[in-house]
């Protein structure tokens, strides 16, 4: 019962991630794509969280932290690159 509900919740989260991927593919501007990829990273965190309960293991906690950090750094770097054209200012 518990595992069945968790599997259905994973499937529902897959629909949410699919909507994000649709926006990444059809997004009219680059900012839309960056926002959708950021949201996709956050959904991946929740996905791995449910997977930890489903498989009854705590081996994925570092995976969650690394995905969170990489999503944030990627979004900030891409936004900064769009804004100025270079990532590191020298002056």
């Amino acid at each position, binding site marked *: 019962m518990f595992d069945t509900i968790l599997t259905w919740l994973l499937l529902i989260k897959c629909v949410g991630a699919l909507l994000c991927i649709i926006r990444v593919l059809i997004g009219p501007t680059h900012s839309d794509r960056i926002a959708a990829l*950021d949201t996709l990273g956050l959904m991946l965190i929740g996905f791995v969280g449910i997977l930890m*309960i489903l498989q009854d293991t705590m081996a994925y906690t570092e995976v969650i*932290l690394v995905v969170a950090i990489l999503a944030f750094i990627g979004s900030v770097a891409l936004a900064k690159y769009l804004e100025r054209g270079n990532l590191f200012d020298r002056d």
Partner: protein
Amino acid sequence: MTAIEWIIIIFLAVGTLFSIAAGIGLVRFPDVYSRLHATGKNATASVILIMSATFIYFLYEHQLFIGKILLTILFVFLTTPVAALLISRSAYRIGIPMSKESVRDEMKPYYDNEKASPAKNE
């Protein structure tokens, strides 16, 4: 199912609903600013609820206090608004227009000021 499993299921279900709301808002809203409005708050709430459920599960089923999950909650809570702010500010500065239905643009005088005198910034 025990009571603690019901509590975990409720937390996970509400978090999944927030996640679905973020996806629907991302697809259906008209411009990038309203999409960021939809995804930032909903995805943060989703991650916080799901990670709280994971923490409660390991605390009550295995008597394990996993601090890294709490650290993930804190990190997501701090960094998602910053990422949304940076994305929307870069979108505004490179001139992506708002949607036709938008009625107010409160940032316009400030950025006109900045464009008129670029040497004052930086």
